[in-house]
């Protein structure tokens, strides 16, 4: 299979994502510049972390107007798997592909450290290699990762199993400790932690490998989502 890792001006985890995907799956990975308009040649799409456009207005607010985002939307609607990591998650919420918003951490600081996550949904194509309730270790590195949404939206996310991961401890003030959410159809996942930084023992965790491997498996096995 072939992956696209989108590069926005200011993306800075694009190379890390490419390296992690290669390591986890051996698949072909292509960095795709944000001016591209066609993502049909790719089987899975990753929006990496970073500070697109400096995150100057709001995180992800300007990147969502990039030409490539129309293609991301189209492929998401077609059922392709889209993974937004950190800034990628923020872009997906700004673009309305995922509900809610990510705002300044409640402690007002950027925070980079290993985080323990609880797997809340193990039936999505992104999380099928984890077990529900399992605790995985994946680092966070963000200043604006506090997930918020209206209570009704949060209730619906919980009811529909669309909360993919929560933080085991309160790291940033996120509503219901949410670390990652799925779209309604289950083919778009956004999460603040960085699975691409948890793919080798020396990184302190290899738990991120299974996320990329799960995506690979879902695509190779032609799991049709939705």
């Amino acid at each position, binding site marked *: 299979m072939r992956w696209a890792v989108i590069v926005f001006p200011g993306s800075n985890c694009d190379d890390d994502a490419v390296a992690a995907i290669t390591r986890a799956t051996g698949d072909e990975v292509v960095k795709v510049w944000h001016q591209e308009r066609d993502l049909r040649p790719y089987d899975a799409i990753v929006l990496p972390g970073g500070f697109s456009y400096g995150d100057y*207005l709001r995180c992800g607010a300007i990147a969502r107007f990039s030409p490539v985002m129309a293609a991301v939307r189209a492929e998401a609607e077609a059922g392709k798997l889209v993974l937004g990591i950190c800034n990628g998650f923020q872009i997906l*919420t700004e673009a309305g592909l995922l509900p809610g*918003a990510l705002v300044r951490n409640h402690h*007002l600081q950027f925070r980079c450290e290993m985080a323990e996550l609880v797997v809340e949904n193990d039936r999505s194509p992104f999380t099928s290699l984890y077990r529900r309730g399992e605790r995985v270790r994946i680092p966070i590195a963000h200043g604006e990762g506090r997930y918020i949404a209206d209570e009704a939206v949060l209730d619906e996310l919980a009811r529909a199993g669309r909360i993919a991961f929560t933080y085991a401890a309160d790291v940033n003030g996120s509503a219901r400790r949410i670390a990652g959410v799925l779209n309604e159809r289950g083919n778009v996942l956004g999460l603040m932690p960085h699975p691409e930084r948890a793919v080798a023992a020396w990184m302190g965790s290899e738990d991120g490998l299974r996320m990329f491997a799960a995506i690979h498996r879902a695509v190779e096995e032609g799991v049709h989502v939705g």
Partner: protein
Amino acid sequence: MATWKAQVRVWLKPSVFDPQGRAVEQALHSLGYTGVGEVRIGKYMELRLEAASEAEAAAQVRAMCDAVLVNPVMETYAFSLEPWAKDARAEASA
């Protein structure tokens, strides 16, 4: 066509916790400004634009806010308009 100056204020919806506001409030209290409360911190944006009328200018500002400047999931906004004065930027040095 006339030139306008828009002053836009954007702030977090009341339902969203504003940690910056709280931090500033605490800082003010610790400096002895104990009577201060309800501190909220948002963004202030100023821009120049061209429009035939104030109504048209307002429509433009609203459109920009809704499209880019404001995320309605977390924020809300208000703005005012006035004719652009030659030395409008000079206000900044007041």
